[in-house]
């Protein structure tokens, strides 16, 4: 596994807003089919790192590679746009606040990009939508509008929308943080299902239990650096760093309240 060429390769990622350094020289290699969780306190840079992978938050230094393609290439504006739009088709992303398109039905949300970008016919796109919705258990809501769905349902549709582009890797940016506690499980189940299908996933999360049960590797970030990384059993049960221990202790305490 270790000599396999990394699927997602972040090399010396740096990001600063003026004098404020959000990411300080972070490198991360993710193999095909691997599931990596990024945990850490808010402001640690974990979301920024995730959003750098599809260049939504461009890095100020360092490189991001997906297989043999550099994502954050320096190109003239037009060429860069063409390049990034192509690359992004391979990188699915799920947001904390779902970001479903409120003016389109569930079907419309899912078929919009595949029809426009992959030239699918209406019939093909519909079949694709049905297939993806079935996977997330939302097929019966295909003609609903987002406003008619619960948070958990919205997030499952958002996942289906990302999957419909047949991405090579999925990024989850606190996908369950905005959900009521009783709705978290249905989204976690969908993510577990993806894990079983060996989807490559990078997950920014506050759900330690979920990270422990699903992920192959956990990164603990604080103040723009990776403090500690390793298998979940080590990070959660037996962390080396004081900062990790502190964070986990605080997190457990606040979860029990």
């Amino acid at each position, binding site marked *: 596994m270790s000599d396999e060429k990394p699927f997602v390769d972040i090399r010396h990622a740096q990001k600063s807003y003026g004098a404020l350094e959000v990411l300080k020289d972070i490198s991360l290699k993710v193999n095909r089919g691997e599931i990596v969780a990024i945990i850490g306190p808010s402001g640690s840079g974990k979301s920024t790192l995730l959003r750098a992978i599809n260049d939504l938050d461009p890095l100020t230094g360092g490189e991001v590679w997906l297989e043999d393609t550099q994502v954050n290439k320096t190109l003239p504006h037009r060429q860069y*746009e063409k390049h990034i*739009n192509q690359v992004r088709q391979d990188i699915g992303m799920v947001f904390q606040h779902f970001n479903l*398109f409120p003016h389109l039905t569930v079907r419309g949300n899912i078929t*919009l*990009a595949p029809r426009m970008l992959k030239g699918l016919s209406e019939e093909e796109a519909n079949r694709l939508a049905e297939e993806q919705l079935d996977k997330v258990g939302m097929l019966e809501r295909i003609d609903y509008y987002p406003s008619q769905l619960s948070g958990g349902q919205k997030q499952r549709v958002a996942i289906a929308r990302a999957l419909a582009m047949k991405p090579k890797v999925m990024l989850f940016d606190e996908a369950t943080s905005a959900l009521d506690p009783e709705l978290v499980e249905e989204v976690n189940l969908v993510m577990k299902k993806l894990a079983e299908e060996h989807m490559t996933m990078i997950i920014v999360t506050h759900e330690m239990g979920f990270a422990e049960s699903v992920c192959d590797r956990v990164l603990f970030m604080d103040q723009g650096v990776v403090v500690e990384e390793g298998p979940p059993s080590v990070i959660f049960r037996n962390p080396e760093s004081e900062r990790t221990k502190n964070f986990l202790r605080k997190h457990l305490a606040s979860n029990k309240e």
Partner: protein
Amino acid sequence: MDVELMLKVYPFFIKAAWVTIELSILTTILGLICGSLGAAARLSRLKVLRYVGAAYVSFIRGTPALIQLFILYFGGPQIGIQLDAFEAGVIGLGVNIGAYMTETIRGAIIAIDKGQVEAARTLGMSRLQTFRKVVLPQAMRLMIRPLGVNINALIKGTALVAAISVVELTYTAQRYIGSTYKPFEMFLISGLLYMIIIYVTGRAVAWLDRRARIV
């Protein structure tokens, strides 16, 4: 109040009301064109265009519409722009209301949540595709009511073109006052007709707004 006189002359006012309606429609169309271009300029990636858009809005909103009309109609011939009164009225008022519509349209566009753009871009959609399929359809719904407010102001603003002698509702009232010496009755007829036009327009806007609302 001389109701008999009012009943006698009102058909002439109806004719004038059609001129006001025609002016309003043409002005609205030109205003929407100017407003769309203005908003596009103000939201452009290019600094030059953003400045041009901002200059347009601040010049128009910083000077009286009447002065703008006078510059165009009386000052125009001096720099080679020959327009008849009606043309000058439509262009002057249209460019004027376009500045206000620029801000309305821009406001509706920037009100759309950034997450919408991020979601679309993440799927691989281009800036233009994102704008056309995700941002604009949502912004259109937001701008219906405020554009209705702009149109309401514009309809009342058409009274200004009486000053460059376009024979519309206000000018017609002034003309009949010259022969009847009854300003109260004459202006009252004009006022009532304006009210009807505005009422109908308002209902149309409300209907559009209801229809466009997202479930």
